[in-house]
Structure formats: C-alpha cells, structure tokens
C-alpha cells in the first residue's frame, strides 16, 4: 500500500473538468455513434479496431499497433515516461454481424445494440487524448490506450490476456472502461468457471412417446438444471451458479435431438468454484449412463479471484471523486478484463462511464448527461495513477 495521505477530492476541480469536457460533446457522441454502428461479434472485431486505430492516428498517438490477438493499442507518451498506465476497453459485442446496429439519438439518450457494452467504452478510449488535451493535462507517465478483443463467452478475455503476456512495457496500473453503470466500483474479481453442457439423443426416437419419456433430451435438461439450482440453493449467497441459457428444439411438436445449457459458477472463494465444478461434471456424467442419451461438459473459461482491497489508495481516489460528483459508489466485483489485471497484481479498477438501461437487449440505452460525470471521474483517477504513489 502507498503511504500518501489521501485528502478529500477538491470538488471544484472535478466539477470544472466535467463542465469543460462538454466542449467535446459532439466529438464524443459521434464516436459513440460510429463505434455503435460497427458490428463486432467476439472474434470478428477487425472493423472496430480499424476505427480506433484511425482515431488514434488522428490524435497523433505513438506506436499504434494491432497485435496477434487483434487488440489495437496506441501510446500517448508522457513527459518523463517513467511509468506506463493502461486504459482499456473491450471492443467486442454480444450481437451477431447481421443484427441491426443502427443507433438512434434522442434528447438526452442514445439507443442501439451494444451501446452500453461496450461501444461507449470504446468511444471514450478513442476520445481520451482529446479529453486530456481539452483539460490541458499532460501526464508524466506514458498512457497506453488498448481496445481489447475476444472478451465475451468463449473469447475468455483472450485479447487482454495476450496483451499482458506479451507486452514489452511493464504496466504499473490500469483502468478498464465499461459503458454502464456510473458509480460502479470494481476493484475485485470473482473466481469463475464457465461451461457448456450438451445433451444428445443417441438412439432413434420413439415417435409420439417423447412427452412422457423420462430419458428424452428435454427431461434430462430439466433434471440437470434442477440439480444445478439445488446446488446453488445449498451455497452461501457469495457463491452462485448462473444458468445463462438453455437451448433445445426449434418448433412445437418435434422433440429435440439435442440441447445445450450454458452456465457460470462465481465465487470469491476459488476452492468453492473448483469443488462445484467437479460436482457438476459428476452430475453430467451420471446422465450419460441413461439409455439413449449422451451428455458431455466442456469448461470454456476460468478466472482466479483477485482483490485490490477497498482501502487501496486507487479505490479511495475513485470513491472520493464519485462523492465529489454527488454520485453514490457501488461495489461490484467483476469477471471481465479486470480479473486478468488483478491476476498479474496490477493495481486496477473497472469504472462505468454513464447510466443506462436494457443492457444486452436490442433497445440498450445510455444516458448522455451523466457521461461527463464519468469522464471527470476517469480523468481524476488517471491523474492520481500518474502520481504512482501506490503499489498492489
């Protein structure tokens, strides 16, 4: 921990930043629209990283590059360059290439697929050099701006992991940007195991008897999910099994020949995650013994829990900035890029830029006015990171 005495954040300075940043309103909003209208499903982020790369070039960043994982990076060189700060936003979205990505702009809000997760984060990344220039802030440290790929699902944070494993620069501290929710304070990551269970009918179906067939795919999926929910009930609230989706069949009357369950186990205790994972694996194997049914489980992602601690100077700085802005902070453990950073013992936070609603729905919306609170918070925390007066 650092030895610096933390004083209350000068409210006036934060508010002045917020107000001045409104000069960049159209530029930022246009970046949100443009980032928002580029489809970027996980693994197919080339167009949006090109967009960021163009923006970085226009801002005169150094060492603009695309790496093997498809991440895009640019460096705003610091006055002394003795340290390296990282600001990252994942650029992939949960939506398919063919989904309508049209953004609509109303009074005080924008709507469209993926705006909150994470077009706004990417747009802030693209605008950050202009934000610092507008506030006449020159950092001593080098500022690395990183758009990461393959964050969601099977992507398993591959972009951030690749960057951290291969970066030639030592990262001294980092921020991850998420579009929503302003006020979130993520300084810890949950242990997590993510898996997919496939159930298949391996013998021919007895037509017409599926509804009452206890070994049918639907019946097995139902029993399986019930058993997983029972495990969930048994555990403390700090440990959860989340059933993200159940897929089977395509109509009304034809029994499905296969089904799929996607789930995550989350806990602050890595041991519990591992134990529950073993339990679910055994459960799935037990169904495979049933006549006419085969089942298998594939674990596709794991995270180790990590925690910067609520009293860490970086956390206190972020909390005090939110207080200065009149925003209540909310502790929210993360399972995204922050996990990789904490695993490497890099002091890091995830911040939300604004408020919004309907996350992960076609009507996903972000509110525009609070964005400037989010930017003021980002700048304030970045300036603190630049002092370098802390360790993990």
């Amino acid at each position, binding site marked *: 921990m650092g030895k610096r005495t933390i004083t209350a954040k000068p409210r006036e300075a934060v508010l002045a930043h917020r107000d001045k940043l409104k000069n960049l309103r*159209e*530029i930022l*909003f246009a*970046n949100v*629209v*443009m980032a928002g209208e580029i489809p970027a499903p996980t693994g197919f982020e080339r167009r949006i990283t090109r967009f960021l790369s163009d923006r970085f070039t*226009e801002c005169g960043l150094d060492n603009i590059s695309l790496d093997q994982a498809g991440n895009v990076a640019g460096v705003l060189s610091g006055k002394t360059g003795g340290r390296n700060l990282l600001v990252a936003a994942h650029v992939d979205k949960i939506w398919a290439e063919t989904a309508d990505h*049209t953004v*609509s*702009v109303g009074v005080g809000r924008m709507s469209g697929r993926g705006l909150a997760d994470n077009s706004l984060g990417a747009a802030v990344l693209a605008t950050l050099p202009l934000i610092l220039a507008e506030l006449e802030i020159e950092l001593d440290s080098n500022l690395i701006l990183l758009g990461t790929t393959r964050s969601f699902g099977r992507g398993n944070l591959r972009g951030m992991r690749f960057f951290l494993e291969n970066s030639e620069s030592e990262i001294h501290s980092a921020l991850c940007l998420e579009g929503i929710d302003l006020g979130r304070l993520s300084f810890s990551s949950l242990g997590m195991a993510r898996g997919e269970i496939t159930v298949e009918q391996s013998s021919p179906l007895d037509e017409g008897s599926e509804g009452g067939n206890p070994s049918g795919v639907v019946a097995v999926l139902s029993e399986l999910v019930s058993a997983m929910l029972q495990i969930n009930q048994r555990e403390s609230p700090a440990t959860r099994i989340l059933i993200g989706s159940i897929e089977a069949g395509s109509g009304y009357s034809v029994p499905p020949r296969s089904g799929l369950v996607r789930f995550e186990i989350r806990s602050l205790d890595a041991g519990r995650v591992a134990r529950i994972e073993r339990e679910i694996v055994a459960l799935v194997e037990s169904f495979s013994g049933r006549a006419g049914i085969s089942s298998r489980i594939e674990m596709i992602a794991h995270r180790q829990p990590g925690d910067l601690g609520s009293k860490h100077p970086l956390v206190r700085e972020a909390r005090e900035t939110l207080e200065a802005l009149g925003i209540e902070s909310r502790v929210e453990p993360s399972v995204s890029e922050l996990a990789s950073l904490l695993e490497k013992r890099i002091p890091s936070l995830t911040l939300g830029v604004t408020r919004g609603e309907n996350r992960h729905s076609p009507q996903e919306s972000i509110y525009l006015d609070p964005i400037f609170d989010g930017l003021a918070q980002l700048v304030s925390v970045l300036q603190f990171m630049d002092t370098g007066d802390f360790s993990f």
Partner: protein
Amino acid sequence: MSGIDDRIARWLETNTFHHSEFWDMQELVRAKKEAGLTISLCIPTLNEETTIGKEIIVFKSELMDRYPLIDEIAVIDSGSTDRTLEIAASYGADTYLSSEILPKHGFRPGKGENLWKAIYQLRGDIICYVDADIKNIHAKFASALVAPLIYRPEIQYVKAFYDRPLALSDDMRPSGGGRVTEILVRPLFSLFFPELTALIQPLSGEYAVRREVLEKLPFPIGYGVETSHLIDLYQLSGLDAFAQTDLDSRVHRNQSTADLGKMSFGILQSFLDRLKTYGMAKDLPELHGLFRQFQAEGRRYEQVTREIFEEERPPMITLPEYRERHGR
C-alpha cells in the same frame, strides 16, 4: 447516337467519383480555404426525430469540430409535430421553420419549399442538401459531395449515388436508381434528355450546388424539384456542369408503392412542364393536379383521389429581399 454514347462515357470517366478519392480531409479543408469558399449544410425536415440527432452529431463532429469544412448546419422544417427541431437544436444545428423565412411570400408545404428558402437563409457559397432519413449516416454524405466543387471550379452541381443491394454478381455492381428512377425518370430522360441518364440516381436527396446556380433555378415545391433542377441546369450549361459521387450505401426507410405513385405523378407534372417550357412537346393539354388511385375491400372498389399540384417558386435571384441580403 454514338456521339451521345461517347459523351456519356467521357463524362463517366471524368465527372464520376468515389468518396474514397476524397479521404484526405486536411487537404480538402486546405483547398476550401484557398478557394475562399463557404459551405452550408441544409437538412430539410418533417417529423424526423428518429434520425435527425445522429445526423447533426456526426456532421458537426466530423465536418465542423474535427475538420472545419462546413461553416453552418441548418435544419429547415416544414412544421414537424414531433421533437425534430428540439433534438436538432440540442445538438447544435441552427433550426428554422420554413414558414418563418420570407414570410411575405407565404408558406407552401413541401420539401422543395424548404430547399428554396434555404438559399435565402443560409450564407454559404455552396449549399449541400442532405435528407434527414438516412440511417447509416457518415460525414462522407456531405464531404464527398462538396469536394468536386472545391477541386473543380467548372463543376456546378454534384449528385450522390449509392449501391443498392440487389443481385450482386462477380465484379458487376447493380448501379441502379430507385424504383421511380428506373420506371419513370430514366425512360423519360432516355427519350428527351439522353445525356442525363448518366446520372445514376437523379432523384437522390443528397447533392451540393453552387449558390450562383441555385439562385437562378425555379423551384417546384414538391416531388419534381430534383428532376426540374437537372433539366434546367442541363439546358443552361450541359452535362459537364454535373458530377456525381458514389457514397457506397444508403439505408433509409422504404416508401410504399402508393407513395411512389404520388411521387411519380408530381415528377411527371414537372417534367411535362419542362417539355413545354423548352418547346419539346406541342399541344399538351392543360394539366390538372388530380391523382387517382384505387383500393379494394372485398369486392368493393373505392377511388382515392389526391390533389398534387407542383407549384413553383421563382428563381431566388428575382426576389429583392434576397438580392439585398446577399449583395447580389
């Protein structure tokens, strides 16, 4: 006909551009300054609250804040009852009610009216018109239209054209206009003004024009405004006054066949009027403005009539108020 074919082929070679040719925005802004030009962007509106905000944000950010190419962005509205004007103003556009511009001359409802009044209200040497219903808006919708006017002083009028995603095969692109263009306007141009068929989308609502041209053109206030512009300028200056820019794709709301029928009726009125003006058709009867369509309900067939009258505004240069305001 080979002379016409040759002229069209030459024109396509020299006066048809792709937006990517104008990628260098810094150079474009430098050339604009050197030419001493000012540019106004005009967006005519009527109830466009779902798309107007995005258009303003993108144009203002990219063509005013980042690259100072456009000197003013104006929304000229026919009397929207939704939040079009509020949204446009909140993102920094100058907003005007068409009825409040040149009030002595009254107000006619129609897009052409807004385009005509823009010539009085706006200050630019070039006016770039962009429709408000574009879903996939990008700065090139304006920059790539004004660019030929900046780089080529002899060009007076630049039209946009777009890909239409129909039956793409090998390297051939469809290069077609909309339904009204292909079924009505192109056949008419082929018969009477064959060189104008070189304009791939003559009805496109995105075009940039020099003020000294606009102020001399009469303006039908309705559907016929684009067609009559093309004919009038062609008669005045020939095909070489035109250019066109490929903007790749444009996503917008589709119109019903019945609406396209009304549009075609208005365009045809303007077209026939031009034939008379230029002595190309004799003994045409006096045209009325009653358009007849039919709808069926079971076995009952009902006539639906609508008055569509292509009233025209005179060339702006003939108005004393205009000459005084713009020192002409």
